[in-house]
């Protein structure tokens, strides 16, 4: 089994490399389930149409690269930041395409001296028909070395 430092070194090789596009649908039942689980009242626009929470984007990228998280290990892995930039709101029935890449990996020393890596990744959503940007999700994880 490779050490966490070796896994991080492999990930550094991937910095800037864009994944193939994944096409996903903003499915009404998935939006309903998400809003129900969040527990806040559904919101509507001025015309009465159901609005999709901006954080629903995280549902569309769930299950991505489970083997990566398995290798990093969930112990010591912390989600530290999220930036969601919408160029237009997601709508029920949308088919959008997203790609993924690692933007940066930085290393710092934690207070106890162990290595702490910050991995910043971007999920870029586009409208596959119009080739227009729909949304970016910038996500940062911190991973503490367990060696």
């Amino acid at each position, binding site marked *: 089994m490779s050490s966490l430092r070796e896994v991080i070194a492999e990930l550094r090789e991937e910095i800037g490399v864009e994944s193939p596009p994944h096409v996903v649908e903003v499915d009404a039942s998935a939006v309903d389930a998400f809003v129900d689980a969040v527990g806040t009242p559904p919101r509507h626009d001025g015309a009465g149409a159901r609005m999709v929470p901006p954080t629903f984007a995280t549902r569309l990228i769930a299950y991505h690269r489970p083997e990566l998280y398995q290798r990093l290990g*969930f112990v010591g892995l912390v989600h530290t930041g999220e930036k*969601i930039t919408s160029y237009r709101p997601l709508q029920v029935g949308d088919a959008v395409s997203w790609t993924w890449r690692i933007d940066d990996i930085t290393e710092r020393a934690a207070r106890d001296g162990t290595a702490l890596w910050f991995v910043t990744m971007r999920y870029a959503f586009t409208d596959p028909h119009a080739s227009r940007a729909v949304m970016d999700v910038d996500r940062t994880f911190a991973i503490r070395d367990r060696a």
Partner: protein
Amino acid sequence: MNAADAGVGAQFVIRVEEPFTRERIAAYAHASGDMSQIHFDEEFARASGLDGIIAHGVFVLSVMVETVLAQFGPGAEAPVVDVRFGRAFPAGDHLLIQAEVTAAEEEPGRRAATVTLVGLAEGDRDGRPCVQGEVRVVIPA
């Protein structure tokens, strides 16, 4: 209060009535697809250095964003949500949302506001934020 009519400096504090129970966290795990064990496995959470099961950061964030957008009335959107996650949010606690309008603009056909957000677990006596950042809100005129 409709926050859309509030100017720069307006502050509001909202206590979310529904606690983040284990059942709600499990339901969010299924609906979001984030099935990390720290959100439903007490033993695993403790082995991970936590005091017990915690809510997903994005679950807490989602409640904060939707609650704040509701304050701005129908059609309010959040084109930018930018936050950092801090202290873990423990199962069973209530969420306190502190928000402040820090900028406001009039644009053709719409108004925009920048709102800083802090999310706290009510039971945390140290008052360390679980979520902290800002959201840009756009409201149709």
